[in-house]
């Protein structure tokens, strides 16, 4: 077994885990499986790409690579802007579509269906604006450095793992320690009761979209930096995201992250053993196994 698969798996798993956090939060607080979440990753990556181009046009310094990484100062700055824009996209979509269906008391499954339709439209709109041609944040080539135990990684890849760890710890602290986090958990537990206790449900829903969409943007930018940016990148990640969220236990942030890492590692090993063409089936097999053996997931409680 090539230990390099561990590095590849952890990197892919970081992206999947960050994406799955938004999905699992929306699932536990808004109570529906949001098929547009993958497209938030793709839109976040494209927003950031456009802003990077804009910043690069303003001053050449933004484009100059920050050693040892392959990208310049423009990319992190653009990503902050991209996060804001992705959040706005998610909030607007909630206002015009999901929020209205909720207000009408539509059944969960109708909202799921609406998210399915919206995801198809969002993805095709990306394809219309940017065409299906893959894009890259940087054309610079990076040499993978030895990091011990026979493994190699590029500085970009190590940065992705580091940023993911910081974000997950910060988010975990927010959700477990702050008043907002307590309100979110209360609504996830029992929305009616939380309302009776004077918790502002609308605000909690807003927070859920803000956290989910901002992390989706970061995950999209990471996937774009390490692989490439395509209109279908979010769609291709959707099944791994769902599998990670369910594997970790719906509503659990550490669970989503751990689920993402497990999926990423399994995919990396499957690529070595069976071949890259079957990669996408790994998430499905894990999903089926979880549904068969432990439907509530690793950190889930009670009946699903």
């Amino acid at each position, binding site marked *: 077994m090539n230990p390099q698969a561990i590095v590849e798996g952890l990197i892919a798993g970081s992206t999947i885990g960050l994406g799955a956090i938004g999905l699992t939060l929306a699932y536990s607080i808004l109570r529906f499986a949001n098929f547009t979440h993958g497209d938030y990753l793709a839109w976040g990556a494209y927003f950031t790409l456009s802003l990077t181009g804009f910043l690069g046009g303003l001053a050449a310094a933004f484009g100059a690579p920050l050693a040892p990484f392959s990208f310049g100062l423009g990319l992190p700055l653009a990503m902050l802007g991209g996060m804001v824009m992705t959040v706005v996209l998610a909030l607007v979509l909630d206002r015009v579509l999901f929020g209205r269906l909720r207000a009408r*008391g*539509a059944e969960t499954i109708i909202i799921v269906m609406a998210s399915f*339709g919206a995801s*198809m*439209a969002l*993805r*095709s709109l990306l394809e219309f604006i940017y*065409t299906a041609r893959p894009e890259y944040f940087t054309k610079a080539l990076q040499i993978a450095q030895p990091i011990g135990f026979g493994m190699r990684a590029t500085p970009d890849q190590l940065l992705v793992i580091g940023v993911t760890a910081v974000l997950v710890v910060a988010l975990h602290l927010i959700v477990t320690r702050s008043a907002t986090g307590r309100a979110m958990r209360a609504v996830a537990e029992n929305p009616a009761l939380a309302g009776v206790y004077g918790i502002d449900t609308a605000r909690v829903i807003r927070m859920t979209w803000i956290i989910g969409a901002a992390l989706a943007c970061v995950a999209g930018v990471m996937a774009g930096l390490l692989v490439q940016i395509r209109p279908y990148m979010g769609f291709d990640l959707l099944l791994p995201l769902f599998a990670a969220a369910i594997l970790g236990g719906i509503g659990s942030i550490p669970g989503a992250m751990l689920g993402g890492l497990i999926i990423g590692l399994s995919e990396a090993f499957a690529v070595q053993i069976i071949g890259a063409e079957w990669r996408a089936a790994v998430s*499905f097999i894990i*999903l089926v196994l979880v549904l068969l053996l432990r439907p509530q997931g690793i950190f889930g409680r009670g009946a699903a």
Partner: protein
Amino acid sequence: MELLAYAAFFLTIALTYAVICLGLNVQWGQTGLFNVGVAGFVGLGAYTSAVLTTPDVDARIGGFGLPILVGWAAAMLVAGVVSFAVGVLTLRMRSDYLAITTFGVAVTLQLVFQNWEAVTGGAFGLAFIPRPFAGLQSQPFAFNLSNLAVTAAVVLAVYLLLEHLLRSPWGRTLRAVREDDVAARALGKNPTRIRLQAFALGGAIMGLAGAVQAHFIGFVAPGNFLPMMTFQVWAMLIVGGSGNNRGAILGAVLVWAIWALSGAAIAELFPADQQARAASLQIVIIGVMLSLILLWRPQGILPEGRSRNRLRKKEPAE
């Protein structure tokens, strides 16, 4: 004459979609089960029938040269059995687990079509699928018309079967389970079992539709069964009126017409190098249309009738 031949061709394709729509109507319209992997089940039927009926080729397994009707029956059986298995796995859980799992089924089947070259022919797919009335192929009009007749007969048969089933005690139980799970259980019905039966029946009908379509076109390839197809079929059912079998057929023909016309308009309006890009606008249009209908007229053009209240605000029980 050419125009008529095209009209017959167009209608035949539209009617194969009508069969898929009728299958989805059993799952969603009558039972409330959300299947996001329609294209996978249709593709499964198409490939099953293709493998059984194509002439033998050295390079791959399959090619049994069996009659078309055997292919159709096998397509229903295989798609039905896979649907049943998916149902067993997910129907006891929250409703959106079924959506996620069927989505995964479609993604995985797409991979199988693409990569299991020994059986599916890989990216190039399978050709030389026997076509009904192949002897008439030199006369497009007669060929298309006779195939239209066959497909219309399939639609009619499925329609009559479903209408009969829905009027039977089984159909009433189905609607009872959809409207009020607890009440149905209190009356001694087993909701999970009846949902499972409906899901498998719907899947089998989708498989049949895939086989009918494959035999009409004469070849199958992985690219025919993309998520796009799932999306189109959903738009058809919602536009036509879910729960209503005539609505399902009407929606299929209508949305397929919108699809074909907008495709033709794009071919006229955009230069050749921009057409692939403009084609994505077609999907945006259908996606927006689906969302608008869910918001403004969830019952579709032909509503199910008075028993329907699922899409509107839930009223307290009378």
